[in-house]
């Protein structure tokens, strides 16, 4: 057949495959979401969001403390993960040194592969043992360390793609280097960096294993940041592995709430940083 025809066919085929890929990717989410709603939807009521866990067999009971706990842990993790991640990513994208960035990049990829339970044990040795108690701080540290590689690598790749012309324009106008980086490069890359941060938050919101040895979990409202604190992922885990159907339903409801929370945080962050859109499109 004529070359043009072949190209047109290939074009149609590839576009179709890309669409099919997107569909296949969403399919598990729909299935899992459906599973959660079907199994746990009945447990979602006002009590769920305002009450604390009740023993099995008693009506009501909720995960209010776990919801708040997860938010606090995410905030703490961001305090650790965001500065190191974003600044580190900037360094990797901008530095002209031939060797050190290569090492840092490699280490970040390796850290990404360390199982979360190992990071939890590391935080346990670093924070819990010296303090002689489990705490929200330890949980924040563990989750923050997990966040670092994701934020770091994403920031690097996005910043790297900011066209040099923008940077040069800033310098030509007499701006100092750091101002160019912060006010032009970072702002341009903002949307991409925010996506990276949201992906990292999504990841840590669902982590259970590292919290077992650090934040520990708490059936009551936390009192201070250096005391054990509840978390949705922990509570979901504890309920899911129990023998009781009522707790199972609450576990699925908890998972639904967790996913929705991440959704809302993501939405809020997107809206807050909308301003300057990707100016390349």
């Amino acid at each position, binding site marked *: 057949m004529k070359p043009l025809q072949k190209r047109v066919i290939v074009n149609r085929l590839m576009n179709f495959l890309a669409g099919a890929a997107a569909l296949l990717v969403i399919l598990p989410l729909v299935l899992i979401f459906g599973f959660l709603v079907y199994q746990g939807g009945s447990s979602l009521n006002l009590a769920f969001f305002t009450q604390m866990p009740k023993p099995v067999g008693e009506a009501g009971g909720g995960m209010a403390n776990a919801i708040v706990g997860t938010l606090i842990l995410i905030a703490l993790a961001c305090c650790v993960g965001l500065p190191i991640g974003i600044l580190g990513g900037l360094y990797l994208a901008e530095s002209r040194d031939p060797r050190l960035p290569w090492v840092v990049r*490699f280490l970040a*990829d*390796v850290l990404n592969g360390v199982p979360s339970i*190992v990071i939890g044990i590391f935080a346990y040795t670093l924070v819990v043992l010296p303090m002689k108690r489990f705490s929200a701080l330890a949980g924040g540290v563990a989750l923050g360390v997990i966040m670092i590689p994701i934020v770091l690598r994403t920031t690097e790749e996005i910043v790297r793609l900011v066209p040099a012309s923008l940077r040069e324009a800033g310098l030509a106008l007499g701006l100092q280097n750091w101002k160019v980086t912060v006010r032009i490069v970072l702002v341009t890359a903002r949307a991409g960096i925010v*996506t990276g941060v949201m992906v990292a938050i999504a*990841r840590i919101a669902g982590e259970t294993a590292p919290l077992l040895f650090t934040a520990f979990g708490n059936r009551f409202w936390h009192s201070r940041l250096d005391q054990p604190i509840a978390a949705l992922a922990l509570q979901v885990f504890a309920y899911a592995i129990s023998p009781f159907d009522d707790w199972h339903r609450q576990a699925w409801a908890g998972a639904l709430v967790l996913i929705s929370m991440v959704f809302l945080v993501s939405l809020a962050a997107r809206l807050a940083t909308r301003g300057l859109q990707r100016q390349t499109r």
Partner: protein
Amino acid sequence: MIGVDAGRGGRAQGAPLPRAFFLTPRGSLWGDRIFQGVVYAAVGLFALVMTGIVLALVVESMPAIRRFGLSFVTGQEWDPVKEAFGALPFIYGTLLSSLVGMFIAVPLGIGAAIYLAELAPFWARAPIGFLIELLAAVPSVVYGLWGIFVLAPFLRSWVEPLLGGTLGFLPLFQGPPYGVGMLAAGIILSIMTVPFIATVSREVLLAVPNTQREAALALGATRWETTWIAVLRYGRSGLVGAVLLGLGRALGETMAVTMVIGNRPEISASLFAPGYTMASVLANEFTEATSDVYLSALVYVGLLLLVVTVMVNAAARLLVWTVGGSVKGIRE
């Protein structure tokens, strides 16, 4: 020193700005120095954390290393009661399950990213993108339980008999269909890593300047050819970064995998057979490890996982470098 990046690809005339340019004071230099210091501090902290983790792993696994040495890596027996430990089945399980997972997730993830960045109608992009990101927020334990209650029975009743019937001559698809096993683990891993790959790839593709696309279109390329020649090539390093991000997740994933992999420390060629991964055995047995040697052996497994991660990352980068060539000067 942190200077201006000479850019890549889109700047063919990329001569770096002359050094003298930076020596000329433009306003106070304190801002630059402080900023540089802050950045170096962040990098230093990161290096400290990594060193701490590696050191902790090495120190804690010393007793096991001294006792078993390298035979630990080739040994196939894992007996906590008799204190005979060998990690080969776990290494095999980690590599195979990650391979299966990536085999499924990479084409799907990048394909979905292409769709979202280039082809989807504008009104659909944000919602679909959001949905994919949400996948990353599902807790691993939910994946695991969904795997036991929905995926494994589905595999056992429909998929594995079908594969065994049609492709059963391959050793990959032989053996009784349990439902749980390497295939289930690979599929769960692919579902868990695809949001990372898709999301980051999408951001990378969106950041490719329009000039690239316009140039290709001006030359008469079809939509797909534009994507292939101009966009994907330009963003290649970013795509590799996205895939490595997903790979890291696959290698270290614990909870979901251990619920559907069958947890049998045996090496088998078939995807239907149960297996065991390094992260799983660590999570399963760490809290209950009784003796010092047992604990040390488990940490040794953790150390080996680190080594495997390093090697896989190195291999991936090597692959990209040799295949990709130096068209865009990949600076890895």
